């Protein structure tokens, strides 16, 4: 019986297959994520994690199977603000003359309508999002002058600014210092607890958030494991820093 049976589903993938050539990169993947769940998608390099994420977000059309977000296909989704997305290492031009606040404010556009001006309440939401990743003090700093970790936090804040009901993060913790990871963990917990949102995090290292996870999905073209962290630990895989920890185990899978 699926782990999310009987719960309000936000993400549902059924028999999804996608490949760039003849060989499928992801094959017959079925998974679901319910409201308020914190799920990690892990897998070795080349396991199809990023491709699956792009299919889930509607950036790629599945060759077989069906993707549903909030009960609709990604193309039909009427309220795109419900999905917040933090891409992996966004291709940011170093010479972009834009402040942190300008970039983060972009995350509010889908919520208010792209042609509308932001009002006081929207500006407050933008400030709150910057505060939640400890960037409020740097709001007027050009993003090109920030470190890689600070830039990543700015993109997390941009996703949070829309107050999404599903937050999808692609390797968000890489390059972020311990204090920022703590703030990041708090803001995810707040999003899940207060807004009953779901979080899907794709990462090699679960580090600071390992304790908060409801479920881990292991992908290597197909879903190899889908269950709560204790079950993975019972199989001898630790999410912390041990001899049989997650990155080492994933490496062996690859």
């Amino acid at each position, binding site marked *: 019986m699926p782990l999310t049976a009987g719960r309000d589903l936000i993400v549902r993938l059924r028999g999804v297959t996608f490949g760039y050539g003849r060989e499928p990169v992801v094959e017959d993947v079925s998974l679901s994520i319910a409201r308020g769940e914190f799920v990690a998608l892990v897998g070795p390099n080349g396991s199809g994690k990023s491709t699956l994420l792009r299919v889930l977000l509607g*950036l790629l059309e599945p060759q077989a199977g069906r993707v549903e977000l909030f009960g609709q296909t990604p193309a039909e989704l009427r309220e*795109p603000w419900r999905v917040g*997305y933090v891409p992996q290492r966004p291709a940011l031009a170093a010479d972009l*003359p*834009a402040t942190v606040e300008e970039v983060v404010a972009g*995350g509010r*556009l889908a919520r208010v309508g792209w042609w509308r001006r932001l009002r006081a309440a929207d500006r407050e939401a933008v400030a709150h999002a910057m505060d939640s990743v400890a960037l409020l003090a740097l709001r*007027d700093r*050009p993003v090109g002058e920030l470190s890689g970790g600070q830039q990543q936090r700015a993109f997390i804040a941009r996703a949070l600014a829309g107050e999404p009901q599903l937050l999808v993060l692609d390797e968000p913790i890489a390059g972020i210092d311990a204090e920022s990871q703590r703030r990041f963990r708090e803001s995810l917990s707040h999003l899940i607890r207060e807004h009953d949102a779901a979080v899907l995090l794709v990462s090699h290292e679960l580090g600071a958030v390992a304790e908060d996870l409801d479920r881990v999905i292991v992908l290597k073209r197909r879903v190899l494991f889908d269950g709560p962290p204790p079950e993975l630990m019972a199989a001898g895989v630790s999410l912390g820093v041990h001899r049989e920890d997650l990155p080492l185990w994933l490496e062996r899978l690859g």
Partner: protein
Amino acid sequence: MIAFALPWPFDRTYMQLALAAGLVVGAAAPLIGAFLVQKRMSLLGDGIGHIAFAGVAGGLLLGVWPVWTALVVSVASALVIERLRARGTSGDLALALFFYGGIAAGVVITGLAGSLNANLFAYLFGSILTVGRADVVVVVVLGVVIVATMAVTRRALFAVVVDEEWARVAGLPVDLLNGILAALTAVTIVAAIRVVGVLLIAAMIVLPVACARLVARSFRRQLTWSMVIGMGAALVGLIAARAWALAPGGSIVLTAVLTYAVLAIATVRRRRSQRFSIRMVQ
């Protein structure tokens, strides 16, 4: 014609009309340029400028006001170029096809029309001092269209130039916004044809933005500064043209080039002195 009572060099009607056209283009062109530069598509202005040349030649051949034919041909080509780019054709390649196709078509059509004369030169090199009231009305209307559209779309366009893939996930109409930017680029070029000419149009789109990037620390300020610098270049260029009987299109663009040189030197000096101050403190 009644002239406004302005001091020299704008005491004559033709200079006042030139100033009006110059200020509108000086403000509108960099507004578009700020987004093109960020998308690494600065040369789109040049490419569409050459296509506009074919449109002008078509107008001369058909006996239609060349501004209209240039507008139709430029907007249609800009949309096709954007479509090719969005479908994965190399932006450079798509641009080159239209760039050379446009100039070649222009030469052939001009030959057919038998109008390799001063009339054509006014479009190639600009002839701001000969713009009439009808020209200025068209430039002002096109300028208002550009500024009004950018006022509505600039926030979403900014999100697209920062990260196009993210913007798609966020539900922004990326294809529509890119199409609007391409079409507005064509409109800007047609508005600027009589001011600086086909050959120098891209300069008015790119140079004020290049100047503003040296001083602005936010995108909003970059937009403001580039518009101020664009209008300043038009104003100073026209004064210089009147004072020393220079070709106005060239003098406007050279003013923008000089502004860039001065700002670049000032920026390098400021950074050096900042580094020196930091070393002294240490």
